[in-house]
């Protein structure tokens, strides 16, 4: 297949070329997705697969009744723009839902949510 070599070269060149952007997917979080923690966490931290646009990336933490409980100070980390952090007051035992909506620097919007439990 004489055609294979030039096409594979093109494919490799495309992979190695500087990427311009992509969707920001949640890589991991603290408290972890679906986890149970035995002490109220002081904050929620979300690590994404892409750099975030600070002005348009946000996260909320809701309790089991849907009431917002975070300190409304969601911010992208100055030193690592893939990290989004929101502070928490001392949480009572119960289930909490983290909802996030972020804009990666290439303008792709992604959103999602997950739960964690606080027990004593």
């Amino acid at each position, binding site marked *: *297949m004489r*055609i*294979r070599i030039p*096409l*594979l070269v*093109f*494919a490799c060149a*495309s*992979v190695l*070329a500087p*990427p*311009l*952007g*992509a*969707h920001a*997917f*949640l*890589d*991991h*979080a603290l408290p*972890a*997705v*679906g*986890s149970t923690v035995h002490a109220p966490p002081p904050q929620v931290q979300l690590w994404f*697969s*892409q750099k975030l*646009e600070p*002005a*348009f990336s946000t996260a909320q933490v809701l309790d089991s009744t849907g009431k917002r409980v975070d300190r409304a100070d969601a911010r992208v980390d100055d030193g690592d723009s893939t990290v989004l952090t929101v502070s928490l007051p001392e949480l009572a035992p119960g289930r909490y839902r983290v909802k996030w909506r972020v*804009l990666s*620097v*290439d*303008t*792709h*919007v*992604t*959103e*999602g*949510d*997950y739960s964690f439990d606080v027990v004593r």
Partner: protein
Amino acid sequence: MKPDVCGCRIGGSRPLKRRAIINTKNRRSIATPLALAIGSSLILSAETAAAHGVAGKRFFPATLATDDPFVADELSLPTLESRRMPASGDEAAMRETGFAIDVSKRITENLGIGFGATYKVLAPDGGDTQRGFDNLAASIKYKFYQNDERETILSAGVDWDIGGSGSKRVGAESFSTLTPALFFGRGFGDLPESMKFIRPLAVTGLVGIGIPTRSSTISRGDEGEADVERHPHTLQWGFAVQYSLPYLQSFVQDVGLREPFSRMIPVVEVALSTALDRGASGTTGTVNPGIVWAGSYAQLAVEAVVPVNNRSGNRVGWIAQLHFFLDDLFPTTIGRPIFGR
């Protein structure tokens, strides 16, 4: 091509997939200031960029054997497939290898077109190897429904296997086949908490009718005898069951997976073709268990190709694909719809 069990021959359509899928019966293949400005409009419009198969939290990977339910800016380069085909009639057993290129382009947010070409190598036992392009394929698809909360996408489209555009040496048909089809995708992220470990599951699939533009072809044998090859309508159907480890990891439960496993999606595809008329009958196809690794800009997939019956082959083959998300690679140029944002 071979006569089937009823004495007819099946000249089916190219399967509804951009990749090199081998029809076992007829032995032929079936995308910071500027960011802020744009970002502001996106946020204010409260819409989520729905590129390469994203519905709410669900990311549907591009599957290999069954066509996707979404429209996107994508490039599959290459798709490689190899299968060992059994002897049939007067044809020797052979190894069939396909090398395919497929590109999809959004015209608008919900309307897309696609083109595909497959280079084939047929190596019969004891015979001369034949090489050439299979017929070119073109398609158009419209996504008419999306529900992010239900992780559901529905589309309708038409695939055109362009008759006479390929090489007869590798069995390219002289007639076209049009295949109108419906496509669906459904994620199960809305299942209750008690079933949370099933939430990463999703199903995509399609059902269509292959309509050949010629009902039969008459050829002359060495001694001048007429050989009538009939081309039946075919039901093209299939589905893909996929369990998204990224979904599990990001939305359900962090089970400790890290790269590359946290980006893997095990999948089982079933791609089938059923002859409907003109004296033909029976179903052929394959079951393809495999795995997809989905990165930020591209995905890599490998599947086994298991024939569903002896009419579909008798040995396990393989298919592999490197697939690029043009909307992520080139979000401001070729990776965006021609019209609209």
